[in-house]
């Protein structure tokens, strides 16, 4: 048998199996309607889950892009200081990050497409559920159980097919977001533990350490000069006022007002 007919038969027979158990065909209407409402909730939750996953990817991509910019800045700084080796290292890491970003971008676009499809599916299902609800009331009000049978069959099989279709789409989306959550969680953990930072160039990385040490070279000299100057001035003061030990021993009461002594 052809593919088109087989898929159609399988989808329908699964839907009918659930409904055949009910005795009064009109119960079928209420049962099916309940299932429709549940499915509608499930689809909307699916859309929300996909959106959450997509936003999380967006945040991670932003973080990685920031790190890329930082590496770019480091490369420039290193080149400016004549350290081509360091610049090369920074650019190499930047390229590695690009691979991760591209990977995240692909996932992002794929999720975006899923989100759009699921949104359309949920709107379609909602329109059908509303049409079904009206038809259900008409059938219940107008027909006896015996008469209702064929009309119920038509209404239910049309929407059951939609439910089967949407159900598969939601299932796929859930599987995919679960996988992505796991991967995103792993990346978040790596970032939190600092493993990714060490690799990708943030505060504790060795490129920054070298750049910092180069930049801090002159500063340390200045700082040393300043400290030496202070020590020189301090010892001159001490000579003027006598040694601190002698001072304290001779006049213990003066220790209670050190600020007055300093000011003088």
């Amino acid at each position: 048998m052809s593919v088109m007919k087989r898929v159609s038969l399988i989808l329908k027979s699964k839907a009918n199996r659930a409904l055949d158990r009910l005795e009064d065909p009109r119960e079928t209407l209420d049962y099916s309607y309940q299932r429709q409402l549940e499915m509608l909730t499930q689809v909307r939750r699916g859309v929300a889950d996909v959106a959450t996953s997509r936003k999380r990817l967006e945040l991670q991509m932003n973080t990685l892009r920031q790190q890329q910019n930082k590496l770019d800045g480091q490369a420039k700084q290193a080149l400016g200081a004549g350290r081509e080796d360091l610049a090369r290292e920074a650019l190499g890491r930047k390229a590695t990050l690009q691979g991760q970003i591209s990977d995240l971008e692909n996932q992002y676009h794929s999720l975006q497409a899923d989100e759009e499809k699921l949104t359309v599916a949920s709107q379609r299902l909602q329109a059908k559920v509303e049409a079904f609800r009206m038809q259900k009331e008409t059938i219940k009000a107008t027909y006896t159980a015996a008469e209702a049978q064929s009309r119920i069959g038509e209404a239910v099989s049309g929407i059951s097919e939609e439910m089967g279709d949407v159900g598969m789409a939601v299932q796929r989306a859930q599987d995919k977001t679960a996988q992505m959550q796991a991967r995103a969680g792993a990346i978040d953990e790596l970032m939190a533990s600092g493993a990714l930072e060490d690799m990708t160039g943030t505060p504790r990385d060795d490129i920054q350490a070298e750049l910092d040490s180069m930049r801090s070279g002159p500063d340390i000299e200045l700082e040393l000069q300043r400290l030496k100057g202070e020590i020189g001035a301090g010892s001159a003061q001490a000579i003027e006022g006598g040694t601190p030990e002698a001072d304290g021993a001779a006049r213990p009461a003066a220790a209670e007002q050190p600020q007055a002594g300093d000011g003088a």
Partner: protein
Amino acid sequence: MIVRILGEGQVQIDDAATDELNALDAALERAVNEGDEQDFRLALAAVLDRVRALGTPLAADSLEPSDSILPRAEADLDEVRSMLSDDGYIPG
């Protein structure tokens, strides 16, 4: 006749196109049976393209069942196989 493409919705197609679609469907079935992913992809794309080109979308609030149902465009060979196997893939 009404044809559903899974994941896309239903379209109405003039019965005059039945033979043409049946031929494409038969080619798809051969590809599934032979198990060549490349042939399968081409055959699936061919029938889906034709259905989309010939079909007019049904209103969103239509409750009409389809006469035929086709796999989604992204489905691979394994997915279609497990869909066609009795125990299936399609949630009941």
